[in-house]
């Protein structure tokens, strides 16, 4: 099976700091492999173990995203494709998905394409569906597990808000994946890290992928960011550390006042 996983490097927003004006400080934030994508990579590796084949990873990002792709190689992926060019600067999700789909066509045919359901910075969830659309492939979002692959049919578990669906899709297809919270992310082993540096790492520039250049980068992006600002902050209220009865009584008083309870 030839599997491709689309990955993204994102700022580590689990330990975000704010300045005095409540604005998120972006400098000095560590860059990490998007956790949803890491899950997709690990699922892909599990599929490779079960059914054989090759797992490639691909990103469209500035050069510094190399460490994210290296991590995927260290986890066990076989090949990395890094699409990087100034021409892609300012891309929104449509421009990114378009360029990715061109790069994928350039690289070759895949039986299965996987991606994290969303990235923790943008949270749009667009890339998976849009790449699938551009490639003319069926796709499923919110995939928590690839249950089985039988010939050219894959059975996946897709989460709904109030349950899940078991969806059977004819390959080639794209799955946008979301891990269960109990998922334990792997750390690359020492031997994995050593092996990573000898695995193929292929760079693509804008000229290397055949397509409509006017649809790359900022010019190819229908959406524009007008401005960014800190969210309205809910401030920390009153935290009681003493007697439970006192605390509860005080809270109930407020709830009565605000007519939440009558």
């Amino acid at each position: 099976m030839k599997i491709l996983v689309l990955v993204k490097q994102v700022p580590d927003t689990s330990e975000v700091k704010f300045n005095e004006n409540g604005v998120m400080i972006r400098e000095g934030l560590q860059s990490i492999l998007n956790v949803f994508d890491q899950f997709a990579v690990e699922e892909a590796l599990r599929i490779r173990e079960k059914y054989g084949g090759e797992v490639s990873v691909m990103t469209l990002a500035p050069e510094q995203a190399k460490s994210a792709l290296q991590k995927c190689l260290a986890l066990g992926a076989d090949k990395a494709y890094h699409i990087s060019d100034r021409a892609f600067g300012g891309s929104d999700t449509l421009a990114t998905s378009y360029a990715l789909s061109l790069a994928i066509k350039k690289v070759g045919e895949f039986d299965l394409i996987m991606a994290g359901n969303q990235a923790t910075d943008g949270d749009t969830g667009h890339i998976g569906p849009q790449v699938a659309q551009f490639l003319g492939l069926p796709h499923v979002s919110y995939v928590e597990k690839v249950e089985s692959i039988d010939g050219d049919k894959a059975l996946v578990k897709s989460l709904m808000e109030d349950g899940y669906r078991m969806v059977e899709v004819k390959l080639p297809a794209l799955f946008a994946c979301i891990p269960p919270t109990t998922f334990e992310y792997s750390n690359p082993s020492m031997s994995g890290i050593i092996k990573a540096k000898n695995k193929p790492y292929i760079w693509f520039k804008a000229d290397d992928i055949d397509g409509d250049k006017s649809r790359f980068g900022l010019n190819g992006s229908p959406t524009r960011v007008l401005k960014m600002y800190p969210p309205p902050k809910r401030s920390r209220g009153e935290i009681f550390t003493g007697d439970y009865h006192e605390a509860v009584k005080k809270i109930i008083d407020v709830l009565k006042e605000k007519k939440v309870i009558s």
Partner: protein
Amino acid sequence: MLDFTFSEEQDMIRESVRDFAQKKIAPIAMEMEKTKQIPEDVIQGMADLGLIAPTVSTKYGGQGFDAVTAGIIAEELSRADPTGSIPVFYLVQASWGHVFDKYGTEEAKQEILPNVTKGKWFLGIATTESDAGSDVLGTRTTIKKEGDKYVVNGEKMYISGVREAYTRGGGHITIAKQFPELGAKGMTMFYLPLQSKGIIPTYVDDLGREGISTGGFTIDNVTIPKHYIVGQEGKGFYIVHEGYEYARGLIAVICASAGLKSLERGEKYLKERKAFGMPLAKFEALQFRLAEHYTKLSFLRLGSYWALWTYDREGQKKATRFEVSKAIAMAKMFASEWSTQAIDEVMQWQGAFGYTRECVDQAAWRAIRSFSWAEGSKEIMRVIVSRELLGKEYTSYK
């Protein structure tokens, strides 16, 4: 050309170890003070990642890592485990695994090292005796060749990992007198399996590193096969210093790391704790002490990596034995002192709470205090450096 950056690979190694240590070690570290052992799943996790004796060549299940890379792993483990248990578990096996790999027989290495790197057996070092620490030549344990085997008699004391090797399997690199009349040229190094008939372990209740045992053992006519001899007969005194030096280099990094981590905890505390209407962090006296300790420990850290780098250069024939001995002794000379001083300061900031066992820093202080003598006392470090500077003829004793 001076380059103070690590390689891409080393950065990846650091990130992976740090992430593992944060998830698996940090949450259970203080528990080891009570359970007195490293949890099995942590040992297994370390083995799976390839962190146990990574200095051993890949042929025997290691990673073939150099000293600087070994130092990176030590640094991250030390950050996550304030009790020092896992750093000791790591540094002993990394240092002496390297020596065993370099000087051991093929047969012994095939037999023992894969079990060590898999986390099944423990590999330790046992040179210290009740009456001989710094004075290695004061060793009273003897080893005698008898036909095809060797017989060992004596005792060792204040040894790390006695319980680990005795119960799980494995043994200790040991040094004993084979030809007493030859002095330094009469000592032989060998591997001593702790489950051998004739070994009786005892345990010591020491102040720290609770997750790994400290103890001793009597050696009563223990027989070992000849393939357990490490290096040539009579060369033990010289080979053992290579192991001590590796360990000292890793210890220096561990001290710097634990001290800096303690300062990190302290910094947070200074910002949160208020007195006289303002956070402690606003009091200049405390700011200055933070800055001083941070500076010393940061230099200690850099110096440790420089010493480990020098150690690697000997292997590349770019540094002499003496340059390595000196560099390593310089790195370890102040390591425990500077680090325990910083940690003591952080305890002081926390006042009465710093004096309770709930305070993490007191565990770190007890752990790092041991490094003022472990694998070579701070006094011996001064002997080494002055000897390298002035010349052997000025050493006041043989």
